[in-house]
């Protein structure tokens, strides 16, 4: 068995070392040639993206994706992703853009590029009435659920002490389920997300404890795609100017866009 295993290992290692692959050249040209744009959207993150009774994604991010496809004059293909895998989706070329309430941070900026902001997002820590915390320092001894790889995850991992247990779930489904089933006492997520959950009358109510960060959402795309970047930023600017973005905000967030976006 030793010999057999060694051969397997050797084969696999050899196969992986010899691997180096080119990525595509001009993403915008590709999209136009294809006539389809593939956009990663969330389906577990209301109100940015969640499923209706027909399991089709709906929400702020989906409307934004539709807007972009429409302006580019191409067909839209929605690809549901999770927080954890949306960047690999982009890196591996499975999608052209990520519109998935994506926040900006230095780690991410090292591997992908960001457009201008297209949606406001304040993340914070939420929990039921029975838990009294008002700041990061109060979190000691509590168990906090976050979605792995989200801005909240990266941010809080830096800020909290060792006495706080952070449970990281694969996707927002897991994070929200763990909170609603009482597996974690607190969750960190977006204020609008918590609001959307509250609206559905959950068994445990996620009330705002404190805000962590103002972290607006950006559209993510692969590095070094200036044409695509320019086109996307132009569409966002136009949408801000002509009120299209305002309308999306009113529909999903039920509030106007903040002036500084």
């Amino acid at each position: 068995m030793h010999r057999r295993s060694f051969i397997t290992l050797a084969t696999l290692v050899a196969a992986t070392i010899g691997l180096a692959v080119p990525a595509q050249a001009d993403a915008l040209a590709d999209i136009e040639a294809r006539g389809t744009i593939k956009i990663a959207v969330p389906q577990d993150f209301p109100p940015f993206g969640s499923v209706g009774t027909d399991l089709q994604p709906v929400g702020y991010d989906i409307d934004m994706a539709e807007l972009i496809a429409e302006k580019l004059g191409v067909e839209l293909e929605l690809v549901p992703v999770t927080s954890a895998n949306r960047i690999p989706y982009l890196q591996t070329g499975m999608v052209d853009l990520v519109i998935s309430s994506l926040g900006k941070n230095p780690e991410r900026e090292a591997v992908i590029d960001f457009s201008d902001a297209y949606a406001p997002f304040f993340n914070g820590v939420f929990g039921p009435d029975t838990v009294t915390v008002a700041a990061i320092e109060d979190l000691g001894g509590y168990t906090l659920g976050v979605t792995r790889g989200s801005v909240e995850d990266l941010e809080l991992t830096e800020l909290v002490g060792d006495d706080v247990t952070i449970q990281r779930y694969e996707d927002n489904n897991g994070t929200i389920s763990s909170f609603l089933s009482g597996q974690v006492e607190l969750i960190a997520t977006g204020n609008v997300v918590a609001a959307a959950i509250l609206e559905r009358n959950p068994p445990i109510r996620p009330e705002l404890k404190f805000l962590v960060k103002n972290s607006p959402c950006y559209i993510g795309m692969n590095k070094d795609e200036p044409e695509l970047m320019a086109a996307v930023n132009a569409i966002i600017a136009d949408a801000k100017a002509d009120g299209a973005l305002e309308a999306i905000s009113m529909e999903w967030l039920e509030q106007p866009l903040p002036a500084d976006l």
Partner: protein
Amino acid sequence: MIEFTLWDILRNLLLATRWTILLSLVSFVGGGIVGLVVMFMRISANKAVATAARAYIELFQGTPLLMQLFLAFFGLALLGMTVPAWLAAGLALILWTASFLAEIWRGCVEAIAKGQWEASASLGMGRIQQLRYVILPQALRIAIPPTVGFSVQVVKGTALTSIIGFVELTKAGTAVTNATFQPFTVYGLVALIYFALCWPLSRTSQVLERKLNVAHHNH
């Protein structure tokens, strides 16, 4: 806001079950074809070919299906292929299924007594002819129950594809849970649907096995 009735929940789960069934069929048929090739390689007289098949089986049986799915998903894309979730899922499941079916079938071929090989060789048959006319017809009979039994593992294996974003029964279950806040009901229903898919296969396998055993003892 959106309200789900029990019927909405069940309807969505059943609709998603279609994809579970389709993916199971694709994986099983594809895995069967690849598995047959691997099995022939595994029993080949050529040492290098047999070793390659053994390494293949060792690799796919010795690592988690979940990791294989991730690797197929992200690895294929790195090779320059843009793969949708269903394709990566199908490919990984086919390769995984093949490794198990190849071993199951090899066991069946090797269960045929040596005398059968020798008898057919003494009649002047070549190795392929021995397999084709003497060994495989006998092996096929004993291979059916474990093969049907393994199909249950394939159906259950498709649940993992939800993690790479393929929307089948399990993924629909998590999505619906999140929209309804009723994990007990939803996962209970999901489990029942899987049971309804798998149990008939398990039973068939058990019944076939019993029949085969009885037939064996009567010889």
